[in-house]
């Protein structure tokens, strides 16, 4: 055992010289900047405030979800159900609003979707010790189905103030910043504080790094996992609500395949699927990175189909660069 640790140390301990340190600190944001500069040569419409505020607004939904996903991934888990949660949240929001005309009740019910799903995930993964892939996979199927069972159609006509949530811009320093972007940064900052500056975050890292060691140090691992998955579910619902506000309607298929982009954002942002590593602002950067690539491809008039191929290649590249970083570091 001791020799194994020694051997591991041998190829993890490298010189930490300053260019690498800065590169490590920037993480994916370094590549966001690099590619933004490269892309600006490809299209004259790319590098300007308006376009970037759109990229960020589009990324905000994924980023809010990726914030929760990052907690899950750091703890060594995965949550496939978030896309379905968004769909189901959207359907519940629409149906309750249509049937009661009470937006507050609708919002509460919509939030409850994510929280209940999260609790179920947490119970299965934490207390039943089921592999999270399977547990959340089961709930993923369930959520997507329930959404369509509830209503197969799109529902709109929300109150004006609710629609503003996703569409308004607020002037900050003479720039009009979309509200969802502000919300995204608020959520990211709050959870970054939770992750890096509070006991809760420390324990998530501990569980991801050495679950048994954390247990021996007195961390209640099942309870912690319950909390993590619940938060993740709640954030997914929250993102779903903002998405409904932005598109001014609810639709039960809205979250289809979202979980994949969200997990990809987290991993691109430096989270390791083995657990124990991850950053909130990295995940935000991951979401921005993906949306930025889709944006430039749109601007260049690349076929939507071709966009998928290119996005796939970039996901692999970004993860490979992370792997390379952690292998060297």
């Amino acid at each position, binding site marked *: *055992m001791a020799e194994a640790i*020694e051997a591991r*140390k041998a190829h993890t301990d490298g010189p930490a010289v300053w260019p690498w340190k800065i590169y490590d600190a920037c993480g994916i944001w370094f590549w966001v900047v690099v590619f933004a500069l490269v892309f600006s040569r490809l299209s004259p419409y790319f590098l300007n405030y308006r376009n970037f505020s759109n990229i960020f607004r589009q990324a905000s939904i994924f980023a809010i979800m990726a914030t929760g996903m990052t907690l899950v991934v750091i703890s060594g888990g995965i949550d496939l159900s978030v896309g379905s949660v968004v769909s189901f949240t959207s359907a519940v929001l629409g149906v309750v609003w249509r049937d009661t005309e009470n937006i507050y009740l609708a919002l509460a019910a919509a939030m409850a979707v994510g929280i209940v799903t999260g609790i179920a995930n947490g119970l299965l993964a934490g207390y039943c010790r089921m592999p999270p892939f399977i547990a959340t996979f089961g709930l993923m199927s369930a959520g997507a189905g329930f959404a369509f069972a509830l209503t197969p159609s799109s529902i709109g006509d929300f109150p004006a103030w609710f629609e503003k949530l996703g569409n308004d811009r607020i002037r900050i320093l003479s720039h009009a910043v979309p509200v969802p972007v502000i919300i995204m940064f608020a959520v990211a900052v709050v959870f970054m504080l939770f992750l890096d*500056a509070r*006991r809760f975050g420390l*324990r998530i890292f501990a569980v991801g*790094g050495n679950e048994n*060691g954390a247990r021996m*140090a007195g961390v209640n691992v099942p309870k912690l996992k319950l909390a993590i998955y619940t938060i993740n579910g709640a954030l997914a619902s929250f993102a779903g609500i903002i998405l409904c506000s932005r598109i001014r309607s609810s639709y039960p298929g809205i979250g289809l395949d979202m979980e994949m982009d969200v997990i990809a954002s987290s991993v691109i942002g430096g989270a390791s699927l083995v657990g*124990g590593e991850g950053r909130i602002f990295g995940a935000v950067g991951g979401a921005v990175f993906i949306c930025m690539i889709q944006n430039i491809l749109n601007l260049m008039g690349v076929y939507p189909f071709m966009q998928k191929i290119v996005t796939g290649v970039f996901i692999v590249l970004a993860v490979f660069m992370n792997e390379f970083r952690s292998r060297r570091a």
Partner: protein
Amino acid sequence: MVTGSDEVIRLRDVRKGLYDLSGKTLNRGIPVLSDINFSLAKGEIHVLLGENGAGKSSLVKVICGAIEPDQGKVFIEGEEIPANDPGKALSSGVAIVSQEFSLCPNLTVAENIALGREQIGAGGFLDKKTMLAAAAAQLARLEASYIDPSRKVKRLPVAEQQLVEIAKALAAEPRVLILDEPTSALTDNQVDMLFKVVRLLKSGGVSMIYITHKLKEIFEIGDRVTVLRDGRTIRTIPVNEVADVGEMIQMMIGSKLENLFHKEACPVGDAALVVENLVGRPGDQAVDLVVRKGEIVGLAGIVGAGRTELARMIFGIDKYASGRVEVFGKTLPPGNPRAAIAAGMGFIPEDRKRQGIVPLMSVAENMCHVSARRLSWHGFVSIGKRRKLAADYVSRLKVAAASLGQEIRYLSGGNQQKVILGKWLSANSRLLIFDEPTRGIDVGAKSAIYRLMVDLARRGAAILMISSELQEIVGMSDRVFIMRNRGVVATLEGGSIAGDAILRYAMGGEELVRGS
């Protein structure tokens, strides 16, 4: 000094069967602990003594709630504690320095020390300054202030990680401190420091359970000693009533030393393994080594001396910078275990669970992993041939298994080891590398393994044996290579093979003066 009235811990009739990594019992039929009764008095240092696999670590794991006993109860200060709840044991004042790596490699030293009782400051945020200061204070107690509390644990060398583990346990201000082989990775100076702290804690009324393989440490700090063998408590006596080291070894092993090894001289033939100028990483010393047919060659050294690394390079698991490995006259390409196996080499690795067996597969399947191709017809495995071959080796090696189809993870360590050996024998390996062949194996199986090794040598096989157990090296080897700092520092032969000489070379410099 020891009376029943002020006992802090009491174990009553504790039993535990073979268990897996998560502590879940796999097989009640193979007891790891049986009918354990144990008590720890207030302020005493109670030494647990026993061979590898005697059940010492399992016993302390039961106490600190890491594993749940199948039967029996644990009391802390008269109060029964719920099984399998490390948090409860911790809050009752039990802390452990575990033999298993219990730190989180991705966290810093300070975070690891604080984990579970983090210092919370204003607004419920972590008080990182206090955390760092508290960690520094604990490290200072061990005179290990040179360890930076803000470094990540994965970047520390093993000895420093071990000190962090100890500091973490001390930080809990425990009333009962369990030390499971805390000194195996430490230098002598660090050990002295640890003992100073241990004595200080003792005078403060802290009770301690101390597990060690270094017998002289018992006389240095122990009050009482309990000897375990094959999962049973053999005897508990005050240390000052123990006559000498020999008596303790006698109790641990249960039979005379000489009977254990069955060593005999075998006719020595041509060279089976020749290693010339092997350099692992640039800057290492070049290693030269020869093993002849009919020989058992020991490879001694302390943990971290580079023995396993050398063996892995010889076998082709890892690549090397330069040098040459020749097996039965054939030069092997580096980094290719298939070539090594084809040339007749076999490897019985140190970490059985992770490198030796495929836990979910049956005894027969595990037995035939290497010889599968020989047993097959155009890629199809002949189930009949496999059964026949496995049955042959199961009976020849006296493997105790319910059936050939039983999953190997349900077997005891010794029987797993026999299956791994059978795997290589059935593939006609004539040059075998044993890495810690008897680690975690009970005495009976140990003796059987030794008998098999001698038998192999008699029939012309060549054996390279890595071992951290001095008795094993001394008892089994025809020649001994001693490694230090990734190089061979000495070779002993025949009558000159003696425990103290090996230790002297293995430890190097200052230990030589101390004459341990």
